[in-house]
């Protein structure tokens, strides 16, 4: 079965970010979204450790390790950047000042619950800023493969893993579809044209609802 690559999922998520939006991208895969801003649009990227308005990674050898993002990767500054301390940074997060936060997920429930920080009691637990981000940004979106590596659905009726937040996710961009979460239901907005509704439902762990037309999810090679 054909599906979108991670880069293509990131590309699709980037199309919904408006010019001038304040955006926080989770560590790892979500960071890829920054590369796909549509021409003519410029988002302002926030990193929890206290920078607003940062740009791409510096060239190798040009890193300044006092200038990093939440993933501890070296970054650069764009004109109009600002530094601030951690309490101010999370005031931005918790206070609803970010337009969108994009995170990865282990599981997303039809209730909007998100599990993305812990796979269970084994090992060293680490949460970082995820629990703050899901309750702060005006819009909390998830990008993820539609199913796990073993083929199990990641969109489910109820999360089984430890929760990051309750009722916080409003849109999920997957390798197969774009799905809104509204009123405790998964509402299908876009799906790969090569796939039938029933095929998509079969790999989704909760009922998919329709509310208006479903568009084709068409993403360029990126």
């Amino acid at each position, binding site marked *: 079965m054909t599906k979108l690559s991670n880069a293509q999922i990131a590309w699709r998520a980037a199309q919904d970010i408006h*010019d001038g939006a304040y955006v926080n991208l989770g560590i790892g895969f979500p960071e890829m979204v920054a590369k796909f801003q549509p021409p003519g649009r410029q988002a302002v990227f*926030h990193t929890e450790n206290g920078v*607003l308005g940062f740009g791409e990674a510096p060239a190798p050898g040009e890193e300044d390790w006092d200038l990093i993002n939440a993933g501890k990767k070296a970054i650069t500054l764009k004109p109009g950047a*600002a530094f601030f301390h951690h309490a101010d940074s999370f005031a931005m*997060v918790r*206070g609803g000042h970010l337009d969108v936060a994009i995170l990865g997920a282990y599981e997303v429930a039809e209730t909007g619950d998100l599990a993305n920080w812990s796979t269970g009691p084994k090992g060293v637990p680490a949460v970082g800023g995820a629990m703050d981000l899901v309750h702060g940004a005006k819009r909390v979106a998830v990008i993820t493969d539609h199913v796990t590596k073993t083929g199990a659905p990641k969109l489910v009726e109820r999360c089984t893993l430890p929760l990051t937040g309750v009722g916080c996710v409003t849109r999920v961009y997957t390798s197969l579809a774009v799905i809104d979460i509204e009123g405790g239901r998964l509402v299908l907005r876009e799906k790969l044209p090569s796939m039938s509704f029933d095929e998509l439902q079969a790999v989704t762990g909760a009922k998919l609802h329709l509310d208006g037309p479903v568009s084709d999810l068409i993403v360029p090679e990126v």
Partner: protein
Amino acid sequence: MDKRIASVEGAVADIPDGATVMIGGFGGSGAPIELIHALIGRFLATGSPKNLTVINNNAGNGHVGIAALIEQGMVRKMVCSFPRSADPRVFTEKYLSGEIELELVPQGTLAERIRAGGAGIPAFFTPTSFGTDLAKGKPVEVFEGRSYVMERWLKADFALLKAELGDFYGNLTYRMAARNFAPIMAMAAARTVVQVSRAVEPGTIDPEAVITPGIFVDTIVEVADPAQEEALNRAGAHYPEVTA
């Protein structure tokens, strides 16, 4: 991305009747006189906005700025810590006649409630005002043997602020003690409108020196050589001008 607007009139055009408006400044330092007077000008021309709730440390001085706003009858309620000034007559008369409501808040609690509003903290505990009339009716809790009062966040529909430099993305610096409430009010309002003495290109302000990051700012309008409320009052100014 460019948050500039051309005129103070445009900057205050959307404030509706009944809005809650935080206004920066402590006494005359930081008072956004031109924005306030533009709001009064709009009211004189259109009858709106009225029934405002205004949040400021004080309640106006003389007959300019917030005092003029009150004098025009645009303000239904003041939230402040110290509604006194060198010439507090405008507020005093309306308060004593019952035309304006007052919510009196200790200054530090006022600041913290505003910061909480901007930081997504709906309530917090403070030792301030415990056992006093200003704590009446508020929940009290004991932590490590000491009593604290629970206070709620304070938010606003609009903030009207004055800053020194503002870049087109809304990053701000202030001038000396005129900073006072502006950085926290910028956080706590749904829409933050700032008059800046100089609008500059992004990159002009050192990222280390930004006091209010642009994420907290919606609109900037350049007002070069802004009026200073204290200086206006010392010159006996009225707004609108009184013609003999």
